C-alpha cells in the first residue's frame, strides 16, 4: 500500500515514525529537512501522483487550529477545524484538495498531542461555551485510521474534555475504533453521501452507500451520535428520485434519535481550484456541467442550487426535525 515514506529528519526517532517503518519494512525511506521540499513545489501533477501516493511524515509547527467560516457550523457558536493529515485515500472528482495542493502524497503530521494541546487552549478561551472542532476537511477522518491511529488518540483526549466537541467526517467504513470504544457524548461521526449512481461516477474507491449505512447502523447501536452530510449536492438527472432513495435508505436503517445533525452544502469551488481541476481532468463530465462563476467560486446557477437544496430539505424534513438540519452557505453569500 505504501511504497515510499518521506520523513522529516526531526521526526526520524518519533515512536510513530518508527512504527510506520516497522509496518512497511519494504518501503523506500527518504529523509528530508522539511515536508515542504516534497509537498509544496509547483510543477507536480496531482493526477499522476494520485495513482501511487507516498506517505510523508512530518511535524506541523505552524498554526494547528483554524476558525471555520460562520456559515459552516452545526449548531455551535465556536467552530474550528484542524488537519492532522492532508490528502485522502479516496478520489472524489469534486474534491477541492485536487485544486488546492500541488501534491497528492499523504502528508501526516505525527505530533497529534500538539493538536490536542492547542484544542485544549482554544477551548479554554471560551469559558463555559461549547467549542466544536472539525476533523476531515483536508483528509478523511477515518479512512486511514488503520494506518494513523489518529482517531484512537483523539477519542482518548476528547473523553476527558468538557464543552469541547469533535466531528469526525468520513466516507469510510473503517469504524472499528469507534465500535470498540465507549460512546462519547461530545463526538459526532459524520458520514458524507451522494446517491450511489453519482458516487459510482465521481467518488472513486469510496465504499458503497449501503456499506456506509451499515457502519452507521453499528455505531448507532453502540450509542454513538451520527451526522449526515449531503455536501456537496450534485445536480444530476433524476435528481429528486435519487436523493429521495438515498435519504430513504439512510433513515430506514438509522433512527432519528441517533442523528445529531444533517447538513446540506451546495457544490462550490474557489475559481482557481476549479481551473486547476478542469485542467487535470479535461474529460470529466462534472466539470462540463452547468456550472458558473459566482463571486470567487464556481457553482451551479443560483436557481438550480436553490431548487436542489430545497428538494433535499423537504425530503429530509420527513425524517428529522428542522432544528437538526443545517445549511452550509458559501462564505461570500
Amino acid at each position, binding site marked *: 500500500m505504501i511504497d515510499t515514506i518521506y520523513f522529516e529528519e526531526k521526526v526520524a526517532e518519533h515512536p510513530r515514525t518508527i512504527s510506520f517503518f516497522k509496518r512497511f519494512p519494504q518501503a523506500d525511506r527518504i529523509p528530508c529537512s522539511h515536508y515542504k521540499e516534497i509537498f509544496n*513545489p509547483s510543477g507536480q*501533477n496531482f493526477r*499522476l501522483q494520485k495513482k*501511487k501516493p*507516498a506517505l510523508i511524515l512530518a511535524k506541523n509547527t505552524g498554526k494547528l487550529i483554524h476558525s471555520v467560516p460562520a456559515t459552516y457550523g452545526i449548531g455551535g457558536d465556536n467552530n474550528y477545524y484542524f488537519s492532522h493529515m492532508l490528502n485522502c485515500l479516496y478520489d472524489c472528482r469534486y474534491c477541492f484538495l485536487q485544486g488546492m495542493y500541488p501534491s497528492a502524497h499523504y502528508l501526516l503530521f505525527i505530533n497529534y498531542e500538539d493538536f490536542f494541546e492547542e484544542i485544549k487552549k482554544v477551548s479554554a478561551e471560551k469559558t463555559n461555551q461549547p467549542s466544536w472542532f472539525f476533523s476531515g476537511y483536508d483528509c478523511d477522518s477515518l479512512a486511514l485510521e488503520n494506518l494513523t491511529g489518529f482517531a484512537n488518540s483523539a477519542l482518548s483526549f476528547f473523553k476527558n474534555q468538557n464543552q469541547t466537541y469533535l466531528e469526525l467526517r468520513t466516507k469510510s467504513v473503517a469504524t472499528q475504533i469507534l465500535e470498540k470504544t465507549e460512546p462519547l457524548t461530545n463526538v459526532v461521526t459524520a458520514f458524507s453521501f451522494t446517491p450511489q449512481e453519482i458516487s459510482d461516477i465521481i467518488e472513486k474507491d469510496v465504499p458503497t452507500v449501503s456499506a456506509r449505512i451499515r457502519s452507521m447502523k453499528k455505531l448507532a447501536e453502540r450509542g454513538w451520535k451520527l451526522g449526515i452530510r449531503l455536501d456537496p449536492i450534485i*445536480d*444530476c*438527472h433524476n435528481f429528486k428520485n435519487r436523493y429521495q432513495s438515498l435519504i430513504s435508505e439512510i433513515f430506514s436503517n438509522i433512527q432519528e434519535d441517533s442523528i445529531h445533525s444533517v447538513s446540506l452544502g451546495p457544490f462550490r469551488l474557489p475559481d482557481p481550484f476549479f481551473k486547476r481541476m478542469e485542467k487535470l481532468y479535461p*474529460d470529466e463530465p462534472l466539470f462540463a456541467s*452547468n456550472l458558473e462563476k459566482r463571486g470567487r467560486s464556481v457553482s451551479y446557477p443560483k436557481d438550480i442550487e436553490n431548487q436542489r437544496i430545497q428538494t433535499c430539505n423537504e425530503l429530509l424534513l420527513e425524517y428529522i426535525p428542522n432544528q437538526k438540519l443545517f445549511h452550509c452557505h458559501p462564505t461570500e453569500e
Partner: protein
Amino acid sequence: MNFIVALQAEAMPLIDRFNLVKRSDTRVFPIFENKDHRVIISGIGRINAAAATGYLYRFEEYSQGIVNIGIAGHGELSTGTSFLANRVLHSEEKTVYYPPPILEHPITTSALQTCDTPEKLYPHPIGYDMEAHAICSIAYRLITRELVQIIKIVSDNPSNPLESFSKKTATNLIASQLTLIEEIVEQMDDLSNKLSPDPIILELIQQIRSKFHFSSTQSHQLEKLVKQANALGLEITKISSIADSADNAKNCINSLRQNLEPIRRLS
C-alpha cells in the same frame, strides 16, 4: 522519450537499440532521434547538463518526459547495479530534488549526489554523478516532475574505485540495462500520454477553426466547448456536423453551446 546522457559511449547502446539517427541541424549538442525517442549528448558536468536540458526543449515536438541515464559511483551498491534516484543533492546547493516515485518497477532506489569532480572516496552509501542535479534544476521548470527520472548504473564503488575511464565499460554497463530502461520508458510514455490532449479532439478543433475566422477569444471558446462536448459524451461526428451547419464563427459557437445545454447534467 528524451534521454540525456553525458557521453557518446553511454549513448551508443540507446542509439543502437532504438535505431536513432543523428539530426543534422543541431550543432550545439548532438541529438540522435527517431519518431518516438531522442538522445542528447550533453558532455560531462553540471553546466553542460543544464544547457543540454534547456536546449532539448527548443524543439516543440520534444515535449515528453526526460530520463537521465549514465554511469555513477556508489558508496554501497555493487558495480553493474542500476538504481533510480529518489533524492538528488549537490553539496553546494540548498535545493534537494525528489523525483516523484510513480514508477511500478522493483528497481533499487538510492540518493544521488551530483559532484563537480569525480568522487573517489564514496563517503556515504549513496550514488555520485556529475549531472543529475543540474538536469532536475532545469527540467522541473519545463515539464511536470513525475516525467523526469534519473537512472544510473554503478560503475565504481569502494571495492572497485574509479581509476580510469573506459568507454567500453560505460557502453557495456548501459547496454546491460536496456531491457529495464525500455520498461521504464514505456511506463513514462503511458503517463505522458495520459496528460496529452486527445489528438482526435485537437484535430477536430483545428478543422473547425479552419472553416471560419475565429477571433482569439472565440478560438478559446471553441476549444473549451469542443472539449466539454467530448467530456459530456457528444460524438465527434455530431460535433463536426454542428460546426458544419454553422455559417460563421459566432454562429458555430452559439450552436455548440445550445446543443450542450440539455446534456450538461450528470446522468
